[in-house]
């Protein structure tokens, strides 16, 4: 199978349309199973009580916020290095979802922090570096809006995304490098320091967040392709089809 065939917007656009429902359904099913594990199966935490159940959205969203940034920078780097249009469009499609994942991570972290630490916010290394990640996402989005020429915007956003990648290991290792209010990692290579049902619920929710992120990024990518490729010959059949649907 020639995967490079799908490196063109013309061939990837219909493929993305076929993939979106599958990832959307997977996200909904996994979220339902994850919520059942989180609220009906997993036990109450011995120290934190019920409030620890925020972990099932806080940790997946925090992981996704970092992961999506790296993926965005990767596609941005490809666009920068090879001038590939689809890579730049993918990077453009990822940024808003990454920003929203960061907002969810910060919001749920604040709501978890108040009953457990006694404060919604502290300027510790983990929280501050996650906030910097949000500013990086917003910076990438704003930079794109500020430049009229899309190919120049692609290059500028890719450079900013690549520079910002340095923040991701800082976020991840901050709880080891510095003495932070934020707790250390519960899942390590040596094992997880939590009940197996808690871990199962968290992992299922993580896959739900993954599936959702893929579905929504592909959906946004399809809109971006239509925006940026209008006037292209390959879109002409699509235009006549949507006009016919609208006339019906």
């Amino acid at each position, binding site marked *: 199978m020639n995967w*490079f065939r799908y*490196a*063109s917007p*013309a061939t990837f656009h219909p493929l993305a349309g076929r993939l979106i429902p599958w990832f959307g359904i997977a996200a909904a099913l996994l979220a339902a199973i994850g919520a059942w594990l989180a609220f009906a199966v997993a036990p109450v935490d011995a120290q934190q*009580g*019920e*409030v620890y*159940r*925020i972990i099932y*959205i*806080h940790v997946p*969203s925090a992981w996704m916020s970092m992961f999506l940034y790296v993926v965005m920078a990767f596609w941005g780097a490809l666009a920068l290095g*090879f001038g*590939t*249009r*689809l*890579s730049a469009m993918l990077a453009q499609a990822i940024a*808003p*979802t990454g920003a*929203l994942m960061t*907002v*969810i991570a910060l*919001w*749920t972290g604040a*709501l*978890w922090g*108040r*009953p457990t630490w006694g404060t919604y916010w502290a300027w510790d290394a983990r929280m501050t570096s996650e906030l910097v990640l949000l500013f990086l996402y917003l910076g990438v989005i704003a930079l794109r809006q500020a430049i*009229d*020429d*899309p*190919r120049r915007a692609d290059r500028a956003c890719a450079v900013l995304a690549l520079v910002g990648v340095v923040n991701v290991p800082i976020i991840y290792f901050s709880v080891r490098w510095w003495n932070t209010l934020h707790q250390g990692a519960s899942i390590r290579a040596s094992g997880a320091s939590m009940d197996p049902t808690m871990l199962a619920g968290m992992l299922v929710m993580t896959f739900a967040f993954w599936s*959702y992120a893929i579905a*929504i990024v592909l*959906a*946004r990518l*399809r*809109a*971006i392709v*239509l*925006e*940026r*490729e*209008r*006037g*292209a*010959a*390959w*879109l002409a059949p*699509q*235009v006549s089809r*949507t*006009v016919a649907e*609208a006339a019906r």
Partner: protein
Amino acid sequence: MNPWNFILGAYAVTLLVVVVEIVAVQLRRRAAESMLDAGDEPYPHSADSPGSP
């Protein structure tokens, strides 16, 4: 402090963010399709090499 208030606040806002994002993407897609149907001017520098990456 009732812990369920914090849990509800976390899950409700997450759900709201997801719904808002889905609606926003749907609206963007519809806007892009209507621009396409209306035959608006091509995006700057777009489709300079159709079919190529």
